[in-house]
Each structure stands twice: as C-alpha cells, then as structure tokens.
C-alpha cells in the first residue's frame, strides 16, 4: 500500500484574487507532486492541498514568502489512515 507518512494537508486562505492566482502557480510545479483536495477557486473558498513530505518545506516557504495564510489541516495523513484501517479491522473482528 502507498505510504503517506509525513504527508500534510494544508488549508490555504487566499486573501484576494492575486493570492488565488499565486496558489494556482503551485499546480504547475509538477515536481512537488501536490494533490489538490480542494482546488483554488476564489478568495472566500479555502484551498486544501496534500503535500508529500519532501515538498512540505518548499510549499510552506512559497506560501510564507508570498504572504499567503495557511494552517495545517492534517499533520500526518498516514496516522489518520492507520486509524481508519484499525476501525475497519475492529469492526470486522467484532
């Protein structure tokens, strides 16, 4: 199974259209291997991105250097997936 250890999901709050556009630039940076859970649309809508561990620092630096606010929505994706699996297995064994 694919391992998502260290992957974080960032929730980005773009303040205006210019910041939305800036976040869109991230979509073109294929080497970062970002997974847009909720893509950039307009300033009032949050943008959620799953960021693989090796890209976490680069993305955070990009956001901070452009003054774009974000929070960590999921600290470690794999931890949540492990909990999900445990819950399913517990149900089956019961």
């Amino acid at each position, binding site marked *: *199974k*694919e391992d*998502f250890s260290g992957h974080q*999901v960032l*929730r980005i709050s773009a303040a205006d259209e210019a910041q939305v556009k800036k976040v869109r630039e991230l979509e073109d940076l*294929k080497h970062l291997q970002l*997974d*847009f*859970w*909720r*893509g*950039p*649309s*307009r300033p009032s*809508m949050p943008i*959620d991105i*799953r960021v693989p561990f090796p890209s976490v620092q680069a993305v955070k630096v990009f956001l901070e250097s452009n003054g774009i606010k974000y929070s960590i*929505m*999921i600290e470690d*994706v794999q931890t*949540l*997936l492990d*909990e*999900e699996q445990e*819950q*399913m297995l517990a*149900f089956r064994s019961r």
Partner: protein
Amino acid sequence: ASSTDTFNYATYHTLEEINQFIDLLVAENPNLVSKIQIGSSYEGRPLNVLKFSTGGTNRPAIWLDTGIHAREWVTHASGVWFAKKIIEDYGQDETLTAILDSLDIFLEIVVNPDGYAYSHSSNRMWRKTRSINAGSSCVGVDANRNWDAGFGLSGSSSDPCSETYHGEYANSEVEVQAIVDFVNSHGNIKAFVSIHSYSQLLLYPYGYTTARAADQAELHELAKTAVDNLSSLYGTEYEYGSIITTIYEASGTTVDWTYNSGIKYSYTMELRDTGFYGFLLPAKQIVPTAQETWLALITIMDYTLKHPY
C-alpha cells in the same frame, strides 16, 4: 452481516462488502428493489444499480449516484445508507411512499468500482478510473470530466497524469458510457443527483460555461429549499449555485451532460467537510452525513414528483 438490519452503516466497507449488502437488500425486499447490471468496469467488475420500484413500466424515474471519485468514501457509505433508508421509509414515510408510488428510483452506489477497490488495496488517495492511457505511464481518467458536455474545454486537463484528466474522448470511460447508455435507453429520467465529497455544496449546471441554465431560477430556488432542509438537522452549512459560479470552471461534468440531455432537475452535491479531515472523514460521521444529505435528496425527489414536465 447476515441481514441489512445487522449491517454496520457506521463504518467504511470494501467493494465486496457493499456488493454483499446489495444482494442482501434485494433478497430481503424482492418486491421493492432489484439489482440491474448496466455494464462492466474497465477491469471487468459489474456496474450494479439498485432499482427501487413499486411497479409499472418505464415510469418516470430519479437517478442517484455516489462514488464517481474513488477516495470520497463517505459518498459510497452514504449510498449504502440511502438504500436502506428507502426500504425502511416506504410505507412509513408519507413523502417517500408517494414518490415511490409514482416514480422509480435508481441508485448506483459505486460508479467507479475499479478505483474504489484500488483505494482500498493500494492507494487510499486514488480518485480516477483505472483505465490505461495509451502513451502514458499514468493511469486513469477523471470520470467527472469525461462527459459529453463541453468536453475538453477549460476546467479539465489534457495531461493523463493530472487528477482532472478528461480522457481521450467523451465517454471513453466505460463507467461513464454505461450510465449514458442507460439514461438514453430509459428515456424517462426526470431528476439526476450525482454525489461527491467534500465542500458542502449543492450545485446545478453549468460548469463549462458561464451561460445560465434555462431553468436556473427554478433550480436555484429548489437548491435553497433543499439546503435549508439539510441544514435543519445538524446545522451543516452548504452553499449552492451553478458549478462555475460557486466553485470553479469544470468541463465534461456529469450533470452538465444530464441537463443538456433534457433532465431538468440535475444536481451534484459535495458532502460534509468538518474542516479537519477532508476525504478522511471519520466513520462515526457517516450516518450523520447521510442523514442530513437525505433531507436534501428527499426535497429534490418530492419536488420532482410534484412538478412534472
């Protein structure tokens, strides 16, 4: 589970478990529900649709689908809950009984079974179908960009490695083609609701153009009523509007095609997001999500019954 009464609706299930549930439900209620196979997936899995019907021939019908996108597990889980809810409420709930006495309901719980199975076995984050793209090492097509409505325009990707890859041509995905064939051959579907997660939205056409749908005013009013009813249960806040104005430009989407095909009450939903989990919504939220979503669905279905066209 030995029956649909003992089935656990508050946990996520594999494709095999969902298919077992479908067979149980049909076996328990042969006079009300049957299973139709509308085709086979790319990897050969059956595309199962539940038909809820109290009789008649080619009655006007409502289509509900959950799980075009594999990783949106709460949608499949909600679909299972809806199926049981329809059985439980028929003969008990006045509104649902009236609907089923005149209309059929079709429910496809797993539109993309290959992707769903893959999300269980290999990659929980898988979204697309599992078809091989000629000339690319990247697998799969976004089945919600593969419909023949503004196919290939902005709001989808021509890159097979993109999560919004539209595919080589409209209906290239057998999972999409199967629904297209079914809808066209049925010819009497009056409402179509395609369910996704997660952004808490109730959307109507269009996604590929800023042009207003001819019925926009009516669709908007109905969406407002549906959202108000949904929110009345747990206070979950939804936005509603056309796809392009409410979320973003998206071409080749399901409900743009259904609307252009003459199904007036065409909606797509994005289910619950608590702001903490995204696609990884904890299983304990499945039932509340399904319960509140049902209130929106019953609103749309009831309106469809009372406003024939």
